[in-house]
């Protein structure tokens, strides 16, 4: 099947139900998207599918032909994504960093759809887990990106 990832078309030969996460990591070779739980609990695997934050570990590759898939590797090509990354660096958000690809993708989707999110908007959109507990810095970074 053909998948459009980060603006390029990739011909991949996988079982149709292979999760998008593993297509991205193993077939296309982009390892910025992480595996944490495999059951849509943690959000480490979050990518954008047509702009929607998507837990790629439970999203079968079949049915994604024609969709526009964006991963952390090109997030800075997007003006909102770039702003988010800068806010992440300014606020020194990451600790171990393992959840942060997913967090940046989720925040980019949020701020694209809702440039000035309320606390409730942030609560609703930012549901990815962080075992290092960077939650307060995440929120501060989203605030500063939405103001900047």
């Amino acid at each position, binding site marked *: 099947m053909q998948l459009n990832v980060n603006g390029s078309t990739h011909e991949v030969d*996988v*079982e149709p139900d*292979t*999760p998008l996460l*593993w297509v991205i990591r*193993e*077939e296309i*070779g*982009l*390892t*910025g*998207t*992480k*595996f*944490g*739980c*495999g*059951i849509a*609990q*943690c959000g*480490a695997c979050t990518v954008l599918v047509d702009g929607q934050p998507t837990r790629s570990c439970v999203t079968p590759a079949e049915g994604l032909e024609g969709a526009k898939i964006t*991963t*952390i*590797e090109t*997030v*800075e090509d997007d003006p909102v994504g770039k702003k988010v*990354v800068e806010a*992440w*660096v300014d606020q*020194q*958000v*990451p*600790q*171990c*960093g*393992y*959840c*942060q*690809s997913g967090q*940046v993708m989720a925040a980019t989707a949020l701020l694209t759809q809702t440039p000035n999110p309320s606390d409730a908007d942030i*609560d609703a959109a*930012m*549901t*990815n*887990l*962080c*075992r*290092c*507990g*960077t*939650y*307060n*810095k*995440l*929120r501060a970074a989203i605030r500063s990106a939405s103001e900047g």
Partner: protein
Amino acid sequence: MKDLTPDPNRPLNVSRRGFLAGTGALVLSVSLPTRNARAQGEAAPVDAYLALNTDGTATLQSPFIEGGQGVFSALAQIVGEELDLEPSQIAVECAPPGDAYKTIDGARFTGGSLSIRSSYTLMRTLGASARTMLVQAAADAWGVEAGEVTTEPGTILHEASGRQAGFGDFAEAAMDMPVPTGVSLRDPVEFRWIRQPLPRYDVRSKSTGQAEYSIDVQIDGLLNAAVRHAPRLGLTPSSVENLDEVEAMRGVHSVHMLDGAVAVVADKFWQARRAVESAKIAWEAGDSNYPMPADFSSTEFRDVLRAEAGPGVEVEAEGDAPQALENAETVIEAEYDAPFLVHGQLEPPSTTARFNKDGTLDLWLPNQAPEMFQGAAAGAAGIPAENIRIHSQLLGGFFGRHFLYADASPFPQAIQLARATGRPVKVLWTREEEFLRDANRPMAVARFRGAVDANGPAALAIEAVGEAPIGRWYGASPGQDGSAHEGLSGKPYAIGNRRVGHVFVQNPAMIGFWRSVGHSMNDFFYESFLDELAEAAGRDPFEMRHDLLEGSNRHRTLLETVADLSGGWQGTAFDAEGGERRARGVAMASPFGSETATIAEVSLDGGAVRVHQVWVAIDPGQIVNPAVIEAQVQSAVALGVSQTLVEELVYDDGEPQARNFDLYPILRPDQMPEVHVRIVESGATMGGVGEPGLPGVAPAIVNAVANLTGQRVRSLPLSKYDFG
């Protein structure tokens, strides 16, 4: 190197050009005596390595592993301060295995919140020595007195002649300078980078997906493996019923019966995983040093702990607690417990193994102790340790997960599969397989008996019941195992009659170190019971603590600081904005050489506890980077709130009932309180930073809940209770 160390604090130039191939000109090795060696009156070498590069940068080999705690950045800050080089110009790498890096009492590990405090003087001495050698090299070349040569960051200057040069220009020449003895270190009042909230070096790469972890290791010819673990240790596969089917699945290279697991090796991990999930495996009794009983239940084990009689091996005593309790009119008794916990680091464990033509073995793996893993890998591979290269990877969280525990790491599987296939193999555990093999924070019980007079506690007897990780993994016997009773012992309060005992009960589960170890539960037990004593004495818990700290200004200051930070102590429940009823609780802890005072504010949301704010005053004695400390306290508080509210690993029939984050919840973003941190730098001996923020959280929350609801919780987590 050993016989070249007359002055134990004197760095030795061991490079003689190219000791570390390709790293540039100057390589320093510093030998410092370990505490043990000092006690024996003989210097054992403890080496760290600094290379000055000809481009003016420097490279530091770190004895410690980076897993988000900011240690690499802090080391660069310390070395840079004395070397007079911007910390951003110092690249830090995790050093390979070697005796040189055993900086903690002759051992090497990243844990115990020990990294910076154990190496602070060493790192400063390294930086200062390298600077002195650069100055000497320049002075010789310019034909001037070294005393007239100064430095500015990255630059060597001779003011009188107007000469100046970059560090890189003299990196080569500095190498041939004698290593100075007795270098003087900067006066702390002149610090430019130490004590500053400098940004960490790896934040951008972690915000853009560029940071690489064990799971991301890519090497030529790599095969990928997925495993299914036996449902409990002590079982091993006897057959795979549908072996032919599994072998015929797409991408599958081979199927392997391992000790306690079945592995499928395939081109891709997902293919291996799909195949191994489809395997119909029959299990039979096998060998294990830690077999899990088929009927093990954590609920029943808690009863076993409760039933084990004291008083246990005495670990701390003052006055005569038994007598004082005997004479007391009223004795207050309580029993507390805490559950098994998983580490839940977000990166599941993996290992990549490659045998080379020359018989050596490369291993890429997460670890908190490279030499220990190297030694264990040598046993697993049946080759000498020196033939194994350990590539320690950036850790996707650790919290104690990556110490060496039995049967808890994928490297023996990776070694076996690489040998069997003749190809490099990466083994990755799914979260479900990780839940079956994590080394848990042990379940434990603490029993208290206390007596009060009008001022507060007059006598206190405590029994810590259970088994702890230092005993399990390093052979400490009951009484010698601080990880069993830390946080019950070592408290700062002046209670005249007290006794702490350890009642050992072997734990059938695999147990390990979990962020703040014994403190993660013992301070919850102690500080909660202290509030019970305050209630019995009719005292405000804050005021009573303040009185009990008479004689320790350090602790009193800290307690006053956290009260101030929270806007003044509030001892009774109050109406918050919007009319919601809230209350606060307070607790103190003395973990890992630092001191903390914590206040938490809670309300009820339906029948559940909501934590709104946590205030932490922390006194690590001396500091390196306040931003790192603040981040570590935020992180430790999050884990503390998580274990208080929601975490509990339940075993039934010898198996953990949760295998992923669906049935074992961890703290969600909408459950995170606001966290306010104030650092007090008392000047005391430097303490740790990574763990100390955690222990005060549970008791502060539980004391707040008692204050709010009148209900005293003696067993975590709070999600077990309905407060509605």
